[in-house]
């Protein structure tokens, strides 16, 4: 069974540009989470989908971040326009049920210059 996959693995963009990160959860997992780790800091929760609905988006930093999960399968996280402080590693995780173990993808390293 394939694990959680994320694309791209690395992205380097300039300030003001737009970047879209993609996450493919484990097949059949209704719950999908986005987290971010800014260098030197802890991993922080961004938002949680249950199927295609946003269950909790309390961790989204601001309105430059837009997450979608059309059809309840893969998810995208768009940053527009990107700022320097958006640099970090973005992790996606999925779980089958709400209380189940969250399985993480390898992350996308975003660098904003």
């Amino acid at each position, binding site marked *: 069974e394939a694990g959680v996959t994320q694309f791209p693995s690395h992205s380097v963009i300039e300030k003001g540009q737009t970047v879209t990160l993609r996450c493919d959860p484990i097949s059949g997992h209704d719950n999908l989470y986005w987290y971010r780790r800014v260098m030197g800091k*802890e*991993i922080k*929760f961004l938002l949680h989908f249950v199927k295609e609905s946003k269950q909790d988006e309390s961790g989204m930093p601001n309105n430059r971040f837009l997450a979608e999960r059309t059809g309840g399968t893969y998810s995208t996280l768009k940053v527009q326009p990107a700022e320097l402080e958006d640099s970090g590693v973005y*992790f996606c995780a999925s779980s089958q049920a709400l209380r189940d173990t*969250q399985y*993480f*993808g390898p*992350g996308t390293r975003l660098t904003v210059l």
Partner: protein
Amino acid sequence: AQSVTQLDSQVPVFEEAPVELRCNYSSSVSVYLFWYVQYPNQGLQLLLKYLSGSTLVKGINGFEAEFNKSQTSFHLRKPSVHISDTAEYFCAVTPPPGKLIFGQGTTLQVKP
């Protein structure tokens, strides 16, 4: 609100020595507790978790952790480490159900 503190950012240890990685949490409600590990260039992998029941939890790769409610701690231990245990370790809690709240991470450096 919940918070997690990992007291050591780096822990150097020689191969075959025992190790303890410390984790303390703060919460006004009951929580589930987790330890994740991130090997170089990989995603986070679950080592072990405490949901309820026995306070001593055994995980993969010979790791174990003990939940201490009175001290609000969930320290991770291994009696004898290997070079391959070199990685970053994260303690996390979740006020059930939902999002994980992580500590800052501890880098375990196992030396030959």
